[in-house]
């Protein structure tokens, strides 16, 4: 699990342990290259997260892992940071593992909070976001918003599988199954 220096990685780690997986939080290059699975979690703000990734060298390690086909799951902010840019915090460059940009939501209520159906998966997951990406690598949408992206070994979801009950755990298990 990648660290943004923002604290709370409890819920993802608790979900992983419910699935019988062990996890550790690390930005160490070797750990990020050798782990069977890497999660970019969904807490904090875009700018401070990118600054922390840069300062720790995790940004370079994540590019290396991505190029060599190592699986990475991005959750919420973690999905957004994998795109090219985000307009959060006055504009921040992302990792650019996928093409696409993050903009502030234009839905009637922001933040967009609560459970919403995701299509074409026909499943409800929990969302808590004010920004969202738009990418040609979109594989699922919720109320028109791009909420899942895939490119090579990167898979990103805008919702929180670790907070989405049995449906979320099922999805996490699927992501982890080859690992």
């Amino acid at each position, binding site marked *: 699990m990648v660290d943004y220096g923002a604290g709370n990685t409890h819920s993802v780690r608790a979900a992983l342990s419910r699935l019988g997986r062990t996890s550790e939080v690390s930005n160490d290059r070797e750990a990020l290259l050798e782990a069977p699975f890497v999660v970019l979690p969904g807490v904090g703000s875009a700018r401070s997260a990118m600054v922390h990734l840069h300062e720790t060298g995790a940004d370079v390690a994540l590019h290396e892992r991505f190029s060599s086909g190592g699986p990475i799951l991005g959750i919420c902010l973690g999905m957004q940071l994998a795109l090219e840019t985000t307009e959060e915090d006055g504009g921040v460059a992302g990792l650019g593992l996928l093409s696409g940009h993050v903009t502030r939501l234009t839905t009637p209520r922001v933040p967009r909070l609560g*459970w919403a159906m995701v299509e074409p998966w026909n499943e409800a997951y929990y969302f808590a976001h*004010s920004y969202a990406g738009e990418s040609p690598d979109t594989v699922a949408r919720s109320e028109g918003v791009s909420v899942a992206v895939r490119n090579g070994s990167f898979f990103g979801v805008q919702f929180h599988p670790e907070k989405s009950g049995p449906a979320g755990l099922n999805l996490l298990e699927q992501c982890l199954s080859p690992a």
Partner: protein
Amino acid sequence: MPLARLIPCLDVAYGRVVKGVSFVGLRDVGDPVELAAFYSAGGADELVLLDIAATPDDTETMTSVVVHVAEVLDIPFTVGGGVRSVADAMRIIESGADRVSLNSAALANPALVTAIASRYGSQAVVVAIDAGGGVVHTHGGRVATTTKVIPWAIEAAERGAGEILLTSIFHDGQRKGFDLELTGAVRAAIAIPVIASGGAGSAQHVAEALAITDAALVASIVHENPAGLPGLRRELESLGVQLRPVKERV
């Protein structure tokens, strides 16, 4: 809009659930961790834990409750009561809560809303408003202030709150239905979601609230029969409320 949310609220003091929870199906009715897991399994969309003691000697106990609830819960939960500083919010969020709820501390120091939101995002900050006669009340609803409810809701949203938890103190505990007029007026004035609270006595009442707002907080209606939560959800669905489908683990 996302689906309507049904949110049970647990009042906690010194590590124990304190408001009349019936014991059907529970080993220990006073254990917030067991009750939280029970409601999660029963289809709650979120939970709120309210520390109603919130005294300095209660802080450590509440932190430990948050840690244990976070371990068992796979739905989001909000913790309120006793959040008076950024440090309090950090302690609660970094113990595993998804969001904190601010009440009188936000009223006394509105900059606190912005400070927590800029650290954790607006979605992590709920501002709770206890409303009666158009003005905000403090001290668990006992003291009326001169602050008007709607301007305060607007200011809270502008300062970075991600949601308003709106309790009608005159309806609370009466079980005669939510204050729909107040809820509708507050929701129309702001562009963040609003949780209606106070007055749920039947599925019909909850359905009425969910027809006009984003989420409903429920207490006694679920606590008197915790095992009845799935039944309440089915009743709401039959009344036309769109809730999330509750799935099984594959």
